[in-house]
Structures are given as C-alpha cells and as structure tokens.
C-alpha cells in the first residue's frame, strides 16, 4: 500500500479509532474521552490535507472520473463487492470541509457539552458520522457509497435525540424516518443500476455504463428522489427545520455543513454521472423544483420567527442554488454547485455556531424576544452580521460564486425564466437576513445577556470558518481550480 493509499484509509480509520477511544473511556474521565476524540479528528483533518500534497497527474485519460489517489481492494468477493476509495477534484473539497467541521465541532465540545452531558459520547458519535460522510465522498463503489450513506443516519439520530432541545424525540424520529424513506429509494436505485450493469464500480459506471434508456430513467428517478430528501429539495425538505431547531449546536453544524452535501454530491456524482440519460430527461423538473426551493425557502424565512428555523430554511434556499447548478448539466453549473456546496458548509456552519451561542446566552431563539445584541454583545453581533452578509451572497465573500454562477449556468442552458426567478430569490435572501439582523442586533438591548464576551474556544472553533468565508470569496480558485477538469468531464458525460 502506497503512502497516498494509506492516507485514504487513514481518513476513515482514524475517526473510527476515535469513536472507539471516546466510547471506551470511562464516564469519570469524560474530558479525556473528548480529548482523545478531538485528537483523532485533528489527525483525520491532517490526513485529509495531506491528500492534496501528493496529487498524481490523472492516470487514465479519457475516463470520466480521474481520481488523484485510489485504493481498490476486494471486500466481499462472493458478491463481487470491492472496497474502492478515491478522491478527485469533485470530492476533495468536501472531504476537507467534512474533516474541518468535525474537528471544529469536537473542539467546541471540549469546551462546552450540551445537556445532558456525556460529551465523550457526543464526540464519538460525531466521529462516527464523519466516517460515514467521508466514506460517501471517497467511495468509488456504488455499494460502498450506499453503506456509507447509511452509516450516518443512526449516529445523527442519537445526537438529536439525546442532546437536542425540548421536542428532540419527535424531531429525531422525523429525521430518521424521513431519511430512511429516502434510503430505501436509494437502495432500490443502486441495485437497479448494479444488477443491470453488472458492476458497482463508479469509474466504469460513470457515463451510462451501457445502461438502457428505460433503466436510466427509472434509476435516476429513484436516486434523485433519495438525494432530494437528503439535500433537501423542496417539497421533500420538512424534516430539516425540525431537526435543526432541536439539534444541539454541533449537530446542526454537521447537519447543515456536510450532511446535506451528501445529497447534492450524490446527485452530481451518481445521478448525473451514472445515469446521464435520466438526468437529461429530468433536468427541467429538477431545475424548476430547485428554483421553487429558492423562492419558497426565502419567503418562509421572511415570515419566520425562530432563529435556528430561519437558518434551516435559508439552507433550503441555498441548496436550491446548488441543485439548480447541477440541473443545468453544464460545466459552469457543476462548478457553481461545487463551490456553492463548500461555501454553504462554511457559512451555514458558522451561522449555526453563532445561533447556538446566542440561544445559549439569551435562553430563547424567538426573534421577537431577541434584540439589541449590538449593545449587549458587540463582537457576537458583529460576527452574526458578517455570517449573515456572507450567507446572503455578497460578492467578495464565499456565498456569491455558487449562487451567481448557478444563475449564469441557468441562462447558459437557456432557462431564462428560471434564471430570473432564481436571481429574485437571491434578493429575498437579502431581505430576510437584514430583517433577522434588524431584529436580533439592532434596537435597544432586551435584557442582560450571560457571558457577553466570547470564550477562547468559541473564537478558535469559529475563526477558521470566518477566515474561509472571506478567503473563498477572494480566492475562489482554491476550490474551482481543483475541480475544473472533473466538472468539465461530468458535463461532457451529461451532454
């Protein structure tokens, strides 16, 4: 096994070791368990970063997926299943984002454990989620992809059900049942593809892999529905606001930051890649639903009265832009979707961190009961303003590129009406975020706030996201140059 292959395995094994270490720590050494988990998360992050360094030139010319690093081992020989991992420009930014957000959440949990305590288990579950998500992004085998997709589900259920807010049980149940429904469709879709094509190898499958038109339409419908639940795409989104409102801060950060990306990544990699014919056939519907998500998400936000719910609905709108980019089936759209994914992870992750901090301090998330944060906690208010401005897509910050170029790609595709409505949706984002800021930060302070100053741990866990939101805005090429070839190849496949 070469070094780069070892690194690939390490990104999955290290967090898994962290899970065991954190869970095996006795309850009286809770902090030790959290530290062990955080160290595992940090090592995973370093391993993910190191994957960039040894980038090999694309090995197979002409292949639609050209992984920089690849590991292909037999897994269940009897069923012809392979443990096939790899990263390329499409998956790599998401791998790093996942590792980073998990590390930040573990670090945050070192400082603050939500009720009812037992932080080492929370850290362990976060790492288990990381294993699943990284598995999704790195899998080059359709069955492995599906298995990883499922690994995420139960730990996330536990995170919401144990550390969540008052209505956590109902929210967690809704989350798990709704997404299980999606998983069933995914399972059927995966087996339709695998049984018809006779292989689960993504590299061989990408481009249609000899699947007939009927199979592709059926498979794409099933897969797209499954991914639409996860992304979430309107009207399959209603598990999201409940889950976010009740989830603990770190749960929300992971959920919005990377968990949703499994849906859009799957749509691009599997939906468009493996069943391009189906994608071509369904793309207008997908585009229309994405635009509906943008506008409806924005309008609901405008009438929303709960902080975390508002951010959750704003995710519906933002992910709408990502799906719109994918639905155009152009290289421009794929690139916009990729940077939109990363930017949303960074910015919404930051927003949920901040919303959690505000809710913890003010003991309420209801907007009418908040106010005057600018007076009572100026730094927190400043950061919230920054994150909100980044999220509304201000040019110069990370959120702009994905949304503006999703619109450009939509025009390129010739969907003028959809582009116009999507652009209007971006103006709606400005309206609801400014309304949010006006209610939360402006005006007289409603009352004294606990710990108006920020803790060092908060600054440490938010800092990277603050910097990234600006850095990706100023240097979008950091993501886009990695994925340029892969995006072009995918668009070629779907042409």
């Amino acid at each position, binding site marked *: 096994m070469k070094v780069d292959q070892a690194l690939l395995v390490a990104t999955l094994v290290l967090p898994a070791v962290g899970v065991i270490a954190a869970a095996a720590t006795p309850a009286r050494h809770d902090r030790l368990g959290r530290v062990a988990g955080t160290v595992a998360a940090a090592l995973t992050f370093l391993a993910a970063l190191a994957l960039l360094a040894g980038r090999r030139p694309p090995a197979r010319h002409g292949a639609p997926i050209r992984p920089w690093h690849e590991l292909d081992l037999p897994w269940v020989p009897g069923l012809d299943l392979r443990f096939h991992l790899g990263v390329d420009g499409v998956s790599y930014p998401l791998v790093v984002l996942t590792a980073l957000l998990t590390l930040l959440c573990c670090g945050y949990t070192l400082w603050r454990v939500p009720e009812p305590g037992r932080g080492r288990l929370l850290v362990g579950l976060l790492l288990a989620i990381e294993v699943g998500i990284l598995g999704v992004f790195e899998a080059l085998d359709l069955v492995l992809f599906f298995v990883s997709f499922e690994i995420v589900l139960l730990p996330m259920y536990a995170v919401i059900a144990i550390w969540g807010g008052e209505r956590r049980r109902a929210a967690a149940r809704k989350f798990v049942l709704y997404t299980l429904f999606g998983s069933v469709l995914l399972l059927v879709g995966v087996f339709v593809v695998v049984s018809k094509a006779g292989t689960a190898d993504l590299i061989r499958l990408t481009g249609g892999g000899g699947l007939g038109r009927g199979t592709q339409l059926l498979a794409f419908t099933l897969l797209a529905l499954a991914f639409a639940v996860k992304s979430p795409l309107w009207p399959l989104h209603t598990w999201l606001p409940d889950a976010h409102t009740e989830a603990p801060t770190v749960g929300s950060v992971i959920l919005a930051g990377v968990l949703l990306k499994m849906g859009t990544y799957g749509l691009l990699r599997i939906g468009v890649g493996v069943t391009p014919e189906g994608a071509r056939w369904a793309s207008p519907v997908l585009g229309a639903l994405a635009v509906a998500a943008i506008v409806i998400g924005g*309008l*609901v936000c405008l009438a929303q009265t709960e902080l975390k719910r508002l951010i959750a609905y704003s995710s519906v709108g933002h992910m709408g832009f990502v799906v719109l980019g994918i639905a155009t089936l152009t290289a421009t759209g794929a690139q916009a979707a990729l940077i939109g994914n990363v930017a949303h992870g960074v910015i919404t992750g930051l927003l949920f961190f901040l919303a959690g901090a505000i809710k913890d301090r003010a003991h309420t998330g209801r907007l009418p009961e908040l106010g005057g944060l600018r007076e009572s906690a*100026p730094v927190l208010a400043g950061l919230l303003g920054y994150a909100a*401005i980044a999220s509304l897509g201000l*040019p110069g910050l990370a959120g702009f*590129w994905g949304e*503006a170029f999703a619109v450009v790609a939509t025009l390129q595709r010739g969907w003028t009406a959809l582009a116009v409505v999507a652009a209007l949706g971006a103006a709606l984002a400005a309206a609801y975020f400014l309304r949010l800021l006006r209610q939360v930060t402006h005006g007289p302070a409603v009352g004294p706030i606990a710990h108006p100053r920020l803790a060092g741990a908060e600054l440490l866990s938010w800092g990277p996201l603050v910097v990234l939101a600006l850095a990706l805005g100023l240097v979008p090429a950091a993501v886009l140059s990695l994925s340029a070839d892969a995006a072009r190849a995918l668009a070629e496949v779907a042409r």
Partner: protein
Amino acid sequence: VSVQAQAALGAVLAAVPFVAALIGLLLPRAPRPVAAALGIGGAAVAFAVAVVLAFSVNGPVEASRRWAEFGDLHVTFGVRLDPVAVLVAVAVGAVALAVQVYSVAYLADDDRYGPYAAQVSLFTAAMLLVVVSGDLIQLLVGWEVMGICSYLLIGHDRRLPEAPRAAVKAFLVTRVGDVGFLLGIALLGVKLGTFRITEVLSRVPQLDKGTLTAITLLLLAGVAGKSAQFPLHTWLPDAMAGPTPISALIHAATMVAAGVYVVARLFPLFRPAPATLATLAVVAAITMLLGALAACAQQDIKRVLAWSTVSQIGYMTGALSVGAPPAALFHLLTHAAFKALLFLAAGVIIHAVGTNRMAAMGGLRRGLPVTFWAMTIGLAALVGVPPLAGFWSKDEIISVAWAAHSNGPTPPWAAWLVWLSALLTVAITGWYATRLWLRTFFGPPRGSAAERPHEPPWTMSVPVVALAVPSALLGFAGLAPGFMRRLGFEGRVHLTGALFVPLVFVVVGVGIAWLLWRRDPGTDPARALGPARRVLAEAFYLDAVQEALVVRPVVALARAVRRTDETVVDGAVEATGRGASGLGALLGRAHRAALPRAATAVLAAAVLFGLVAVVIFGGAR
C-alpha cells in the same frame, strides 16, 4: 511612470483602503488615534496614488489575471485604467479623505468610531474597485460591497430609531435593482463568452438588437438602484439617518456616482440601444423634476440636500441618455465637489445647532462665517451661478441635450424631454437652494441654539474649506482643452449666447424665493406652495406606493407560503406518519384478543386457508 507601474498603482489604489479596512475591522477596540490614522492614511494614500495616475495615464492601461474558472467562462481580476477612471478616482479619494478627516471630530464622542472608520475605508475601496475594474464580475464585487457598507454606515447611529429601517431600505432597494444588474452581466457573459470589459465592448456587434436592449435595460435596473433614479430612488432620502459625513460620502463620490460611471464606462453597449436610451431619458427627466420638487418642501436641511442629489444625478443620467457621457462625467466631478461640501457644511451647522430642522435655524451667518461662505459657494455651484463649478457642467448638459435632438443616438423626443426638464429643474433648484440659504443663515434666529452657534474644531472646517476650492474653480477646467479631452470631450466648452438661457431660469427661481422670503423673513417660503407643499414634502407619496405595491404583498405572500409549507407540505408528511401509526394501532388492537376468541380466529383462518388451497390446487389437478 511606465505602463506596468500604472497598472500596479491602479491595483494599489483599491488595495490600500481595503487593507486599512481589514485591519480596522479586526481591531474594533483599537485606540481612537490608531483607528483615525488607519482611516485617514488609507484614504490619503489612495488619493495620492490617484493624483499620480491622473497625471500619468493618457490612454487605456490594462492588466489582468485569471480569477476563477467556471467551465468555459473565465472571470478575470484586473485593472483597466483610462483618463476618465483616474479622474473619478481622484474625486473618490479626495472626498473620502475629507470625510475621514472630518469624521474624527464629528464622531468625537462615539465609542464605535473604530469600526466606523474601517467601514468608510471599505466603502472607499469598493468604489475604487468599481472605478478601476477590468472585469464585470469584479465590478459587481465592488458594486455590492458598497451597498453593504452603506447599510452598515446608515445604521450606525444607535440613537436614531429610524436608522436600522433606513439602512435595510437602502440595501434592499438597491439589491432589487441589482437583480437586473446581475442578470445583465450574466447575459453578457453567456452571449459573449467573456466578462472582461474590453472584450465585451469589442464584441458588442455580435449581439442582436433585442438582446442588446434587454441587457442594457437589465443593467439600467442596477444603475437606477445605485444612482437613486426613479422609481428606485426612495432609499436615498431616508439614508439621511446615517451620520452626516456618510451622507457626503454616499451622495458625492461613491454609491450614487457608481451607476453613472458604469453606464459611461459601458457606453458602447448603450449607444446602439435607442430604446434603452429613451427609457433612461424618461427616467432622468422624471428623476430631475421629482427630486427638485421634493427638495422644495423639506424641513430637514439634510433632506433638502438629499433630494437635490436625486435631482442632480438625474442631470447626469439625462446626459447619458442623450449620448453624452463626457458631459455626465464632468457634472459627476463638479457635483462630487459641491455636494460633499454642502453635506459637510450642513454637518457643521447641525453640530452647532443640535438639530437638522431648518425651522430651528436662521441668522447663522454671524456665528458661523466660514461655514456661511463655504455653504454659499456650494449652493451657488449647485444652482449654477457663473462662474462656479456647477454652472459649467450643468450648462454643458443642457446644451448637449439641445444638440441631441437633431443628431444623437436617442430618439429626438427623448432629447427634447431631457432638455426641457433640465431647464425647468434649473429654476426649481434655484428656488430651493435659495430657500435653504435664507432659512439657515438669514432672518432672525429661531431657536436657542441658533442664537449662539460656534464654529467647529479645525478638523471639521479644513475639509469644508478645502472642498470649497474645487466647488468654486473646477468649472474652469472646462476651458482647458487637455482636461476636457481626458473626459472624452472634443475640446473645451463653447462660450455662446446659449449659455444665458439657463441663467434666465436661475434668476427666475432665485428671485421668486427671495421675493417670497422678503415679505416675512421669519417664515418659510415653502408656505407659498399651499396644498402642494404636503404632496412635495412626501415626495408624491411614492414611499407609500412602494409600500403598498411591493412590501406588503411580499410580506403577505411570505406569511401565506409559510402557512402552506407548515400545514400542507409538512402536514402531508405528519399525516402520513400519523396515518401509519394509526393504522398500526388499529391492526394491533385487532390482534389483541382473549384466548377463546384468539383460538377461534386461528382455527377459522386455518379452515379458510385450507379451503383456498383446496379450491386452487384441487382445481388445478
């Protein structure tokens, strides 16, 4: 200065205030002198660089690198300098510097001065980015960052309850226009395959007429938002809630100037689109008159000036609409000088009197002699009294509008419209400026604070006096052929008898105001407006129209959508869940039975299955 050095300096121009802003925002609790040094330093360097460039750049200078790659579309990051760009940059730098210096004293007792100064630096950097930008996407970055800076700065004052609302309005109204702007840029990119301004302009002939008209109209929406043109002008008067130096910044050299500058820069797109130019002409004519009329009845000194900005920007867009970007840019420069002067001087008055209301002023010329003379110069320049700056530039616009109805890119009726409303506006401008002047500086003092005003600290009066110089003299640049050719004119302005036509209108406007005031120096000449006064003070109730036609329907729609989302979309999901549990409970109950009934049921089922088996398999055999 070599071409490479010019391009590098062009990049430095925007980068220096940006870095100053970044440091300032990262150190919100820095001591005041540090914050002030950062703010003033950033603006001063930008100004100095702009001056160096103004003397060295003679032709187009361009340098760019690839910034981002989206499939076949590339976004570049670079500078594109020409004499017009560097002249506008000088104006931006000068006004920003004056504002930064002035703010030190104006915000002397403000504990959030640090972030304020940093935001002004960011504002300056964003405007300079728009000015030097070589790529439309890059231009959009500066364009929108300016919007957010205006939001932050208008909402700065925590004592004003209306400030947050005004800030949100400023950003949202301009953002609505920017939807069009973004779509216009996106369409250009998609149709022409590039966002680089030079390439876009050289490929204009590839566009068919309809597309070109659509694109330019979309761009115009963004321009109307930023430059406060009807019907997207409503944010500008409310933006008065910001500190006075911010008003100077927004009204003089940044934000509202950006729209005019961008149309001038992209004029090869607009010239072959007469429908767009005619639309712009109508918008300009309405805006000119609307702004001037609304200014006539305002009680707040800053609101008079704000409406006058709306009206004066209307002159610039009017010049653009008749195909004369150089005239628009000339007025942009002179207006930058005298409007910055007027706002900063008004700030001195407000600082001295403690109120914005002209009803509480009067007789201030004795207590504030320096401000009085500065304000007199500024108002005379605004009215167009020769030989002050506004006279030359406004006159140029009126004469190009006159010339344009025989040969211009716009339909003759549109040129007529611009010319006529420009002339009428001259008279109205004379009226409201005279009213402001008389109400503020003459007559008896009408308030306790107005009786003993005091001149401000030197950091406030120096910028005012310094701005009075270009307000008085910049017009003479119109006689310098070198300067005028840099702006795009063919030569110096022509001194002809036609110059006296607008002067007649000036005399009429000023004279009527003076006569009305002289009857009773203690009362407001606006009383003569009678019932129209209220309509004008409310600016024809366009705010209410906007509220009724846009804001309330959107809010109602949002509530309805939220309800639908919760009851129908999520309701279906919840109902599915409840239905499944209900069905399960029902089946569960059916399976709960005491032993005799359960045994009977099992036996009955066995008999039933047996019968079925016999019927099916028996029949088959």
